[in-house]
């Protein structure tokens, strides 16, 4: 329970937790105090009403230890592009021997947070924990208290990165019962262009462990950032993710989020539009089966005028799986000419699957275009008949239509190798062979 982590913090504070720049221990201390005060959320908290985190609180995970993973074991997770710049983290700890850091344009920083805390204290002080605030969720507070490692990606002004950067978080086979706190900071400066893929994968299939990850993204003026987040943890594991994005004037940020792992998995994606002329695209796909619970909470803060946001999240649920979608759109009084569209569509493949979907629009400006829509339904019988009338057996017809449903968002992934891999993942999940 809560006290377990407070005790773990005291041990950590006396042993590694006090390392790094001078400002950091105070930040950690404040975060654990925050966590101690609020504790794990319960179903009485409106934000957590449909997401039972009691199993996470009860499990009392111990801090993860370094694990051993071979390069070969990572091959299935590399999108066929082992040459892409990639930082690999095993149980939350940077593994330089598994990582690939090629020569990059001048000024680009690609490294791990633990090293950056020693070398880049000033840069980190300006950003780390300034965007993803620890008070946002109890898990964000816990991550802030315990964060030690993760990725730092810094793309200087005007720099264009050709290849995507892959941040790969892998859990080793012996990591059952442990918790890791990855912490990432991605800064794409004015006029720069970068694509970042963040994957959470496992070699501990069937093990119960906990990943509590936080990522901060800073998108500078006129910057272009593509962010792909893939969560394929063990189906017995727990995953809490929080991504906060701050966008500056004229910037373009597009995200694609895939969630298919975890017994209980949640991702909060919060994007703040801090200046006029911003464009934000958010696509999401979640696939849940068995008893999985998958939760997506998104929040878009339209603080300034003339910004567009476009959000499409889709879910496919079978067996007794449950999904939660909560999409908040806040439009401040000064954010006139906001154009925000939000869509959440859910496909139930079984009558015992369940979805709680809640669009939440809070609009305080009058000259705006804001729409939202949520649907929950089964496969269209007419479409099934159409396929069957062409000789296609019903099981195949169901798979084809389910894939088609998912493909609408997968096809939005701009990076072809990632899109192809996601297509394979989704098809595999739906029972296609070959």
């Amino acid at each position, binding site marked *: 329970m809560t006290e377990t982590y407070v005790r773990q913090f005291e041990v950590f504070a006396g042993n590694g937790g006090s390392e790094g720049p001078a400002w950091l221990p105070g930040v950690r201390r404040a975060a654990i105090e925050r966590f101690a005060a609020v504790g794990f959320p319960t179903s009485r908290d409106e934000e957590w009403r449909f997401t039972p985190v009691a199993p996470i609180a009860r499990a009392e995970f111990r801090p993860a230890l370094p694990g051993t993973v071979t390069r070969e074991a990572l091959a299935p997770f590399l999108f066929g592009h082992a040459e892409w710049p990639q930082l690999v983290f095993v149980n939350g700890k940077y593994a330089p021997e598994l990582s690939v850091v090629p020569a990059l344009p001048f000024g680009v920083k690609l490294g791990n947070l633990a090293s950056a805390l020693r070398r880049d204290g000033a840069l980190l002080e300006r950003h780390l924990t300034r965007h993803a605030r620890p008070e946002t969720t109890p898990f964000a507070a816990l991550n802030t208290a315990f964060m030690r490692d993760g990725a730092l990606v810094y793309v200087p002004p005007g720099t264009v990165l050709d290849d995507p950067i892959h941040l790969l978080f892998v859990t080793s086979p012996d990591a059952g019962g442990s918790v890791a706190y990855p912490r990432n900071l991605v800064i794409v400066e004015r006029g720069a262009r970068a694509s970042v893929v963040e994957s959470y994968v496992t070699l501990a299939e069937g093990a119960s462990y906990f990943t509590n990850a936080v990522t901060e993204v800073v998108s500078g003026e006129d910057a272009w950032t593509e962010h792909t987040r893939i969560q394929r943890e063990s189906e017995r594991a727990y995953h809490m993710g929080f991504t906060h994005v701050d966008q500056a004037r004229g910037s373009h940020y597009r995200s694609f989020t895939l969630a298919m792992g975890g017994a209980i998995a949640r991702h909060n994606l919060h994007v703040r539009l801090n200046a006029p002329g911003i464009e934000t695209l958010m696509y999401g796909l979640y696939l849940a089966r068995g008893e999985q619970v998958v939760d997506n909470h998104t929040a878009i803060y339209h603080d300034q005028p003339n910004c567009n946001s476009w959000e499409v999240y889709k879910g496919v649920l079978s067996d007794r799986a449950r999904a939660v979608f909560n999409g908040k759109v806040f439009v401040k009084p000064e954010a006139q000419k906001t154009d925000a569209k939000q869509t959440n569509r859910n496909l139930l493949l079984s009558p015992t699957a369940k979805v709680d979907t809640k669009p939440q629009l809070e609009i305080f400006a009058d000259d705006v275009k804001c729409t939202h829509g949520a649907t929950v339904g089964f496969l*269209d*019988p*007419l*479409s099934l*008949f*159409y*396929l*069957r*009338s*062409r*000789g*296609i*057996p*019903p099981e*195949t017809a169901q798979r*084809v*239509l389910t*894939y*088609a*449903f*998912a*493909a*609408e968002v997968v*096809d939005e992934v701009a990076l072809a190798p990632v899109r192809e891999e996601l297509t394979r993942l989704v098809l595999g999940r739906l029972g296609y062979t070959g």
Partner: protein
Amino acid sequence: MLDVNDLRASAGDKEILRGISLTVKKGEVHAIMGPNGSGKSTLAQVLAGHPAYQVTGGQVRFEGQDLLDMEPEERAQAGVFLAFQYPVEIPGVTNAYFLRAAYNALRKAKGLDEVDPMDFLDVLEDRLKVVEWGPEIMSRAVNAGFSGGEKKRNEILQLAVLEPKLAILDETDSGLDIDALRIVAKGVNRLRSPDRSFIVVTHYQRLLNHIVPDVVHVLVNGRIVKSGGKELALELEARGYDRVEEVAGVA
């Protein structure tokens, strides 16, 4: 080829087909005409196994098999094809994937090997000519964002690829401009053969100027009230359905 005997069908509580009998021989083209609500589209859909209708009586034999006892995919595998009045849009599935999946499903049912995407391109090249289309249509999602005319052409393309023994065209002419009508009719005529039969369901005679039928049936209020040669279609055009209803003595 097809023997329909006293077929009755309902949608919910409403009886729509009230005893239809009809025999289509190999290679024949039968036109089914009738006013709106007469049941002609229902007949087409019931023959394909549409789930919205319940068969309440009668028999249908297709090539000696009990058609009503077969699932929709089994009917297709046996050689029945329905060109839909309202083809279904399937965003996310390309025409190429859909057609190959259907083509292979039929091959598999016949015990033949499936064809791979490359070999399927060869099959397609020739069939695309039937509807005067280039290969670019294959990478578009099935019917998604297609115009009314494109959807109907796509149905005829499927017909050309799947090569059924019996093709049922359900108001394939509705919503077509004259150019699209010409292309669709020309495509159908190219697919006519001594081994393939057609049932052409239509409200208007104009399609039958292009696809000349052997037999014309007039369906009114769930029953065939008159059958005859292709002249019957012209007669209907000239005199309207009301007169036929009068002649046949049904209200």
